[in-house]
């Protein structure tokens, strides 16, 4: 594996490691963005109103049960090649953890704080935006980072339909029985996953209020 990975020939050109890495990162970030745009408002709405919790849990379980390969194949068969099927499959994969995290996060906000928010005269939107979401952020990030890990790992299947990304190495390695290449692909994926997670951890640190850190890191008591 080391041999394959550190062979300079694999580090350049349109099929080199840097290009594949960027493609993979591209799939991942785009997927997460789309999934977040769908799942956070949905989870937040259901969490805020407290209605349809059953729906969220049910929906995310069904989505979790969807085999990504099957979704991918179906969409390919239906809509043809390209990035679209990949995004459909990956977005469906990313939605459940983000939605569940958001929902759980909002539900877990101290009801007294929410009550206080209404009590000081915030409107429902204000309660959601100024109190519930900021307080739910740690759990939202939890779901989001879980989704990110899964998407990074699964974006590999883009290669199954001939698209790029690090999965290329894995699939080509598999087809060619070149285990060096395949392992290198897997390791790069895992590495990318760790980096992406670190990135989001940094973002989380920047955007989550210090008041919500586990007691002991922030202050006394």
């Amino acid at each position, binding site marked *: 594996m080391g041999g394959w990975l550190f062979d300079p020939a694999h580090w350049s050109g349109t099929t080199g490691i840097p290009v594949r890495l960027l493609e993979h990162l591209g799939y991942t970030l785009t997927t997460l963005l789309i999934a977040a745009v769908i799942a956070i408002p949905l989870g937040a709405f259901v969490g805020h109103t407290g209605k349809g919790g059953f729906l969220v849990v049910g929906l995310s379980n069904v989505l979790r049960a969807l085999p990504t390969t099957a979704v991918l194949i179906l969409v390919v068969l239906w809509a043809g090649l390209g990035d679209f099927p990949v995004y459909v499959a990956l977005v469906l994969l990313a939605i459940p953890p983000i939605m569940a995290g958001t929902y759980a996060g909002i539900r877990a906000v*101290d009801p007294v704080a929410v009550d206080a928010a*209404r009590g000081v005269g915030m409107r429902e939107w204000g309660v959601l935006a100024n*109190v519930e979401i900021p307080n739910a952020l740690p759990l939202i990030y939890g779901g989001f980072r879980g989704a990110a890990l899964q998407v990074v790992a699964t974006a590999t299947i883009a290669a199954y339909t001939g698209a790029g990304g690090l999965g290329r190495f894995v699939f080509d390695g598999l087809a060619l029985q070149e285990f060096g290449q395949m392992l290198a692909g897997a390791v790069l994926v895992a590495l990318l996953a760790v980096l992406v997670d670190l990135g989001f951890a940094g973002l989380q640190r920047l955007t989550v209020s210090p*008041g919500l850190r586990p007691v002991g890191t922030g202050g006394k008591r």
Partner: protein
Amino acid sequence: MIEFRAVTKRFEDGTIAVDELDLTVEAGTITVFVGPSGCGKTTSLRMVNRMIDPTSGTILVDGKDVLTVDPPTLRRGIGYVIQQAGLFPHRTVLDNVATVPLLSGWDKRKARTRAAELLERVGLDPAFGKRYPAQLSGGQQQRVGVARALAADPPVLLMDEPFSAVDPVVREDLQNELLRLQAELDKTIVFVTHDIDEALKLGERVAVFQTGGHLAQYAKPTELLAAPANDFVASFVGRDRGYRTLTFLHADVPVHPVTTAKLGERITVSDWTLVVDDENRPKGWLSGVDGEIEVAEKDLISGGSLYDGSTLRGALDAALSSPSALGVVIDDVGAVTGVVRADDVIKALAKARAAGEVPK
């Protein structure tokens, strides 16, 4: 002024939390709702700022039916302090306090200045402003809660068991501060508690609720103590009613002279002698002995609370707790001015009664 007119709240599950409540809270006073758990205090309170809407009846705040006002607007004009403070964990203390002014469209700087001012007013160092709620003790959080409710300077303040989460010592501090604040600010305050002592201490008028959402009695503390409307109120107000009544009486008690001595002096004590220090502050009693002695620390009998001239209760307790049966009276700086006797207190009480100061 807040008026409840035949207000009833029945929850969806059929619980009647408040039953035909008729009650008027006078402007500029503290009114306390007290009663056992589940008697509908919180529900009554929350109907005022429409956190809950009544099933029937009308609530007027300053003559205006609350149901005609859009809830968020209504709430911005009514301070609300929740049990356990209910601070926003993700905002600094300063931002917590600045919430309502910001909501009402103040600019950020002004809101923060106001918030800092309020922190001081509730007895918190402005340095606390930068902390997050989790970094404060329970008592400090309560203070922030009060500051937040005061921020927009609302004429009406609703306080739901605001001091229940803290220990008795801190609690007493907070109560005293509330009284001090109210003396300055003159708000219309509705205060909920299940602690009758707190109710009697803070309330100009006290509404005692009975389980099932009935108002059992609405009266001044002294009236509650002297003439409970029914057995429920009597038992809720508790034992020591007579003694507690003394809290509300400031009648004069004659102050008798007392023999004092200083440490190291040689004296002949025939009766109880109060030993004082150089500033004339009490150090202990010497009981009668034979012959001349030198006043020594080791012979002192300590004990006895001191009476600072405030209420009859203090006077009686000073007398009762003193080994000499003479309650030591002190002035502002703690110097002895004389002694009071228990029977004088009892006479003062009788006089106050005769003068109608104690109801019936």
